[in-house]
């Protein structure tokens, strides 16, 4: 019982962290295009092209 009363809140808190993480990812629009999210990570930029001349695009605001 004493073990439980420590372990259970710890488990719940840990899981609560994941719930918050999930809320954050929803807010971050990770679920807008599920098909694309799945493949996006395997697509890299080509390295051998010098793009230092390109101005870095500022991250646009998500919500307008």
């Amino acid at each position: 019982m004493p073990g439980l009363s420590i372990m259970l809140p710890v488990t719940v808190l840990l899981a609560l962290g994941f719930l918050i993480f999930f809320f954050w990812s929803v807010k971050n629009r990770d679920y807008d295009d599920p098909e694309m999210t799945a493949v996006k990570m395997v697509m890299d930029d080509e390295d051998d092209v010098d793009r230092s001349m390109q101005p870095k695009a500022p991250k646009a605001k998500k919500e307008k």
Partner: protein
Amino acid sequence: MSGSTIKYSEIKSQNICYHCGEEIPSGVVHELHREMTTESGKKEESTLRFCCNGCLQVFQIIESSGNKNYYSYRTEFAPKPEGNTIDKWPYEVWDLEIEPDENGYKTAIFLIQGIHCASCVWLNEKILNQEPGVLSAEVQLATNRASVTWDPKLINMRRIADVIAAIGYLAIPVKKTNEKEARKLSNTMLRRMGVAGFFMGNIMLISVALYAGYFSFIDQMTKTFFHVVSWLMATPVLFYSAWPFFLNAWHSLKQRVLSMDLLTVTGLSLAYFYSVYVTLSGKGETYFDSVTFVTFAILIGRFIETKYKEKTLTYLENLGSGLPQIIHVRRDGQTVDEQIDSAKQGDIIEVHPGELVPLDATLEMDAAETDESMITGEFKPLLKTRGDVILAGSRCLGSSMVLQVTSTHENSTLSHITKLAEKSLRELPATQKLAEKASEIFILFVLLAGISTFIFWYFFQSSGIEPALLHTISLLIVACPCALNLSIPTAFIVALQKAFTRGIMLRGGIVLDELYKANVIVLDKTGTITEGKMSIKGQKFYTEEKTDLLQLACALEKASGIHHPITRAFAAAYNGTVGTDSVHSLVTIPGRGISGVYNGETYYAGSRLFMEEIGIVLEGEQSSDETLVYLSGMRNGKVVVLARFQLSDTIRKEAPGLIQRLRKKYRIVMLTGDHVESAARVAGDLGISEYYANQKPEDKKEFIDSLENQGLRTVMVGDGINDSIALARSHVGVSFAQAAQISTYSSSMLFLHEDLTLLADALELAVKTRHKIIQNLVLSFLYNLFLLPLAFAGKIIPLYGAIFMSLSSIMVVTNSLQLARTWNSGKRVRKPGKVGL
């Protein structure tokens, strides 16, 4: 994204273009030498071949911008970069419409045509983000839409469209839709699902401990501790995640309907509050786990259905606006492009070949040809003379037209029909009938069982009020299973998904129910049963010459380059024997025909009237059912007729088989705006005994209404604007995605491919889905049959309840999934990617 990437080795072994995958015509050489990495990782010198200069250029642009990886990611070939003439779109005007935000930046949503796989999305995003002045670009694969933010000081909308056109895609801005609201809604749903899923998982862990304790030993304090923790976790699920069910139940109660949500809410609340009582009193077992599980499962179903509805809607919006939003209007002697709303009565406007007439108008020139197929469904070209009325939605054929506007945008004929159809759609009877009926019977049944349990225990067993109430409540809890709640939605979702992969889009699962109940199928003729375009059916030669007269006629018509149903029929039959560059001095006479010079001789191709006007006397008579085109030329110093070609609309090749199949089960009716003769011919060919010709849009609507008054349920298939009111009035309106926009809007089912057999597929799917639903209901009823007597006897053990609740849910879901396997009659088609305007 499903499908594997395209390997270079596959391309190398075939004579196809590296970029677009089309066959390379013989004699065409467009090659580049590049070092390619083979599958084994070795580098080798290779030759990349292209079908045309356009593809080669696109390749070079993609390569030089550092996005060559596109070619190793793609799972489908790229769109061929031809015909994407962005010049004709008024990007400057669209650009002006967009208001800059507080930073002076502009944001627009573009529909990007040609996107069909993840690598297209990647490429477009990369190319756009590399462009100076573009602040951000996000492309969605699901909707084919790009959201682009740019700095107007550095770049404009046309330049953005140019960048996309340069890599072979076409970007068209779409009106800002309620996307934001849709996303908000979907995000809220996701959060509700997240909360339900999270607490469900945690409560299940505790439940395992409780179940174990039930059989071995658990002291009351630990038990209560577990109960309290479960209570804490179930509370947000009931009052946050399940909140929409409460709202829906309340709305339906106000309308005096016993809805499915009411059943869900009753079950959930009973289980919850009973468990709270158990927790506080320390007697019995709790049902907090069931509360969370049922909520989670139902939310998943709702979420998937919402996604499908959204997908269908976006698809419809992507079909593009039917009418041009820009007009070419003459102001002070100059032709300028303006917004359609600025047009006034009396304005003189120009309409270019191939464009749609934006407003009702009268012709301000001697003669012109139009195609009113969008409005009437009749595609034969019409000859208009000065002063004739030309309706908005007509297409300009041949040469440019000069028109005087007689209506404003608001009151044009087209807007009128659009409004009528929208009105009819709103008047559609409330759906959701099936689910409602099932739950109504069920609620009554459960309530009766509950009352009799109470009566039995209180009066016959004299058990006192508390045990009687407890037995009643536990009966109500086990009798409100999630299985029943899942029976209908899961079957619908599997069916919707399956239909989508086949090229059938449905507005919600309820359409399947309507399809199942249908007993009359009403078909439009032109464009539905027939292909809606002319083709050469027969030819007759008046000379013994060796010259290929058909190909000469084809070359003449093709070289004229005009948008015209007759021209298209000839262009389709063109095989290149007579080069289009060998004919010259082409003259088009609207409504008559065409003349041109070949080998130094003048040839004429056109109607009988045209022939008579140039002095040829023809024998025989013209049947009104088909169009005849004559070819004449100079022979021995005299113009004589050389050949005659018969053109007519073709019945779709799948139509006869389909009608044969459907006739056994359904009453088949054909409605057409066409004249009797041609209707009779088509009906005769297909064996349709019931047909009505000369039907105006209102007639079609009245016919559908009269069927409904007889208690019949109709499926109407049509494609023209003239069908749209009838489509909206029928129980299931079916249209092709390529059809006029308004008819796709008034339809509840949409075929993405021009294939009528999809109708039979959809009807079959509807029957299969119905069977699945009945099976599911029986399964969940069996569960009740087993548990209700136990509950009635007061012998219900929570463990049994939990096991059977899960088992019955799993059974129902698995059974629904079988639907995907049993519906296999048709061929599988690729996921629709291309959205045409």
